[in-house]
């Protein structure tokens, strides 16, 4: 379980201080699919960075099964990220000089996962495993990023606008892969998006505005990637 208690985060000093998160509290159950909605500048990406241990909050606690990652030092947080979480970014961030297989190995080696080929197969790229990122389409690159994240066998998968750079068809495909794999492997998903339609796929949804949660709700029925609007 992930429990977030009164998180505050600001950037800049004194007069230029920009308060991005203003006392966020939240509880996320294991295996949950949480979508964080909000306009640009609402603080949703900062919340994702703080929750995933990429950044320290100014104040508050982030408890993963009782361990407060906000109190860990840099090396301990690195270990935490290594063991618990994985990321998928809008811009894919594949390593351009390595082929698909080696990009996936980046995640797999951390979890000592010898069977990383399964992750490549799961995203339907086994025939393109020796291709380099620039030889793939945007959707394929994002699928490599999914395989890389899943090969790490994470407990929590953080996604920052994963379909932001994709067209509708490819975006739906990518979301479909992610939700199917989540059902299969039962990891927790925390996804940041500005596309309100994607919220229909999630179990829990929070809507952020100006650094605070303005609305929080649970969906009774989850739609598939092909049922939601775009």
């Amino acid at each position: 379980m992930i429990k977030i208690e009164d998180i505050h985060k600001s950037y800049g000093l004194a007069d230029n201080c920009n308060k991005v998160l203003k006392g966020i509290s939240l509880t996320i159950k294991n295996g949950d699919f949480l979508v964080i909605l909000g306009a640009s500048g609402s603080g949703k990406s900062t919340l994702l960075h703080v929750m995933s241990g990429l950044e320290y909050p100014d104040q508050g606690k982030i408890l993963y099964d009782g361990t407060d990652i906000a109190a860990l030092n840099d090396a301990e947080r690195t270990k935490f990220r290594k063991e618990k979480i994985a990321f998928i970014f809008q811009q894919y961030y594949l390593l351009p000089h390595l082929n698909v297989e080696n990009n996936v190995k980046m995640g797999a080696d951390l979890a000592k996962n010898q069977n990383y080929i399964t992750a490549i197969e799961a995203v339907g790229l086994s025939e393109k495993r020796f291709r380099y990122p620039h030889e793939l389409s945007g959707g394929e690159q994002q699928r490599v990023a999914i395989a890389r994240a899943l090969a790490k066998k994470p407990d929590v998968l953080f996604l920052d606008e994963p379909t932001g750079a994709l067209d509708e068809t490819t975006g739906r495909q990518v979301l479909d892969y992610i939700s199917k794999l989540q059902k299969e492997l039962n990891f927790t998903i925390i996804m940041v998006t500005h596309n309100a339609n994607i919220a229909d796929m999630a179990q829990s949804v929070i809507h952020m505005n100006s650094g605070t949660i303005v609305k929080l709700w649970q969906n009774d029925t989850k739609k598939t990637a092909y049922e939601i609007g775009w």
Partner: protein
Amino acid sequence: MEMERKSTQTTEYPKKESKTGKRTKPPLSPQNKNSKGKKQMIAGKILSIRDISRLFCIVVISFCAVFVCTLFLNYNTDLKSIGIQVMQSDVQNFYNAQVMTGKIVSILSGGCLLSTSAVMLCFYIGHYVDTHAKMLGILKAMGYPNLKIAKGFAGFGLCVFVGTAAGYAMAHSIMPLFYRTQNADGLLPEISIHFHPALSACLILLPTLAFCLLSVLYGYFRLKTPVLDLLKGEASKKIKIPKDKKSRNNIKKLRTIKNTAGLPFLQEQKKSILRQKKSLVFFIGFASFCYASMMQMSFGMEELASRMMALMIFLIGFTLSFVMLFLATTSTVKSNWKTLALMRAFGYSDKECSNSILSGYRLPAYVGFAIGTVYQYTLLKIAVTVIFAEIENVPEFHFDIPAFLITLVSFAALYQLILYIYARKIKQMSIREVMMGEE
């Protein structure tokens, strides 16, 4: 609406076809004149002061090159003017040896340093095109010709002027001391210092012009990358795929062989980083070569020539290798900044991150060091046995083991220090800033 208005404006000035079929430019209206002026301004301003300041190492190396060449060539020119006064055979030999030393030092140091600067300049321009691919892509997409954009790169070449002019001035300021040291035994008649305008033109203006030309030409060559690749920021990331089927199949086979080796990610990463930037392998190898050869040579020079010569070689060797090692490491880390951020985000430790990027260069560094050691020994041996053969009282030359050990230990320390500086920098990086593109 904006787009529509713009297109209507364009149709008001159709390009005329001349009788020969060539398009002629419409007469320049004040509006057109202004836009032309703006175009030139943009193309000329593609380099910022910050970009040029990164060429500090080229300034240092060109300074060293011109400094050494000015001292020896000025001395040689002045020495030749007293040539007819030299009569006695032993003095004649001393005279010949000095002329020969001047020529060798100028050619070896000057030539070597200037060619290193040229390679570095090309490397910098390539790096600039890679890191500013999007901006250059936009300029190209807007219709700026490659040559016009490349002309802006002349600024890179102009920075050489700072180094050459400073080197020339510095050499002249210590020239009296140098002349006295060269003729410390008083074997030759007194040599007075003269100013040689041709020499200053050759050592200051010629390299500056040559480097400006090189910058423009190399920039032009690098800008031949298709616009879309530049806009996608893929100026040098693409692997060239040959057009014929046979070569393509060979590449496929090669890829399969390479990739089924099943190396762990960190080793694969290390290998691919070395493959990716071969010029950096060269720089690091060459920096180590310079360090090994010039440091050990400086120990021998104290006995064979003079303390001043030894000090000069020591300082140049140290500066050159330090600057090159630092540049190569900086470039490696900067070009892999996002990779490092991603590795850290995924949970790779600081040590794993810095090792995967930097430790691959250790082998080329020590290979360069070994070659440099052999080179300096061979060079000095030849100098003593062949060039100074006719001169009396030249001490015998043997391989200097203490000098070798001191150089090796100091090199290892210097290399580790640079790696340590960057390992710390990697540790302090903000993953969020890198991911948000705020490098």
